[in-house]
């Protein structure tokens, strides 16, 4: 089943929207961005899980929501899921208990978290022998999560089942497919794989030799014999 957020390459005749003039188009966008980062900094979930929650909103909501509405709905679902907020508190927006002390992250700590980031790079492990640059590969089809039916993955449907070639190796990175579901980071080699436009779109390609590059994990790929 192709999920609602997995839209790369779908037929679309819509023009691009007119550029927004300010960093935040609306005041409430600032609230949603800052709440998402500040609550995320409490460390109750990881970045893969927050993406997974945004992408598993009811499909009708995903379709009609603007970017920050998706963020807000995802954040609220994460807070309920992890017990930070009770559903009853969302009905009247009143705290059910006395305020927690010493829980919130200070401005200074947040500032340094933003400056430091959260690298997904892990040390290598012996479970995987990384493919060499230049290796021809075929992507997994269908683009399913190997651990959980209908689970999170970063293999877009449009690139699933096609042949490409490894052009970059980025070391071992946390696997979103498990990390999003709190099944551990299970680091795997991460590569950039190059596909020709012709291989993905056939005769409909604008120019057969144009290339599409995707960052894909080891288990998404099956090496092919070099020709």
């Amino acid at each position, binding site marked *: 089943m192709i999920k609602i957020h997995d839209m790369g390459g779908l037929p679309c005749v819509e023009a691009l929207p007119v*550029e927004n003039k300010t960093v*935040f188009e609306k005041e409430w966008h600032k609230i949603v961005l800052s709440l998402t980062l500040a609550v995320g900094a409490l460390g109750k979930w990881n970045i893969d899980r927050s993406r997974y929650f945004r992408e598993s909103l009811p499909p009708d909501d995903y379709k009609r929501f603007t970017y920050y509405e998706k963020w807000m*709905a995802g954040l609220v679902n994460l807070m309920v899921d992890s017990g930070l907020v009770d559903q009853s508190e969302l009905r009247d927006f009143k705290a059910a208990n006395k305020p927690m002390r010493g829980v919130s992250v200070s401005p200074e700590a947040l500032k340094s978290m933003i400056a430091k980031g959260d690298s997904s790079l892990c040390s290598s492990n012996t479970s995987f022998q990384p493919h060499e640059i230049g290796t021809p590969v075929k992507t997994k089809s269908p683009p399913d999560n190997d651990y959980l039916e209908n689970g999170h993955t970063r293999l*877009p449907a449009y690139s699933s089942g096609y042949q490409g070639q490894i052009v970059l190796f980025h070391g071992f990175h946390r696997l979103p497919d498990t990390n999003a579901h709190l099944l551990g980071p299970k680091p795997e080699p991460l590569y950039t794989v190059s596909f020709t436009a012709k291989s993905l779109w056939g005769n409909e390609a604008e120019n057969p030799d144009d290339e599409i*590059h*995707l960052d894909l994990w080891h288990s998404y790929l099956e090496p092919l014999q070099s020709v």
Partner: protein
Amino acid sequence: MTDNDTHHHHRHLPPDPEYTAEKLQELLIQKGLVDEKALDEIVNIYEHKIGPQNGSRVVAKSWVNEEFKKLLFDNPTEAIKSLGFHGRQGEHIIAVENTNETHNMVVCTLCSCYPWPLLGIPPNWYKSDSYRKRAVREPRKVLQEFGVELQGTQKVKVWDSTAEIRYLVVPMQPEESKGLSEDELVPWVTRNSMIGTGLPTEPK
């Protein structure tokens, strides 16, 4: 715990996003989960400190400083760190160079991944369904819509960044800007020229 894979997450919120965002902020402050000053600081950072001016500095420097250019392509994350622009949503950066043979363009079809420490918060069109659908399938048509004219021989390379690695396009330096200093070049490097949906232009 495991995730229920068959049902979709529920709706907990009232329909008006502005009202909801304000009430949610009040609730989370009241509960002691967030510090109001920290919220202001986050907004301040993304409104005033982190933005495309960072990326423009990186590109302008690479145009005038061969040593920095080499570092930018050999070890981009280090190069960017050396200018102090490392951080959240840009932990691993790859710089891709436009040449007479190649025009690069960046998208994130699954969400809206973008090199935040270098370009700030992505513009609305980058996050739109139409850009996410079309950029991989008809990049040339999309480029045309942005007014980017390709040279006859240029191949288009689209980078669909799926989160861990973020891409910065290093555009070609316009002939008419050759000889200018790094500081003078910074305003030539437009945000879109670093996504690949624009070209550097003389500042007005």
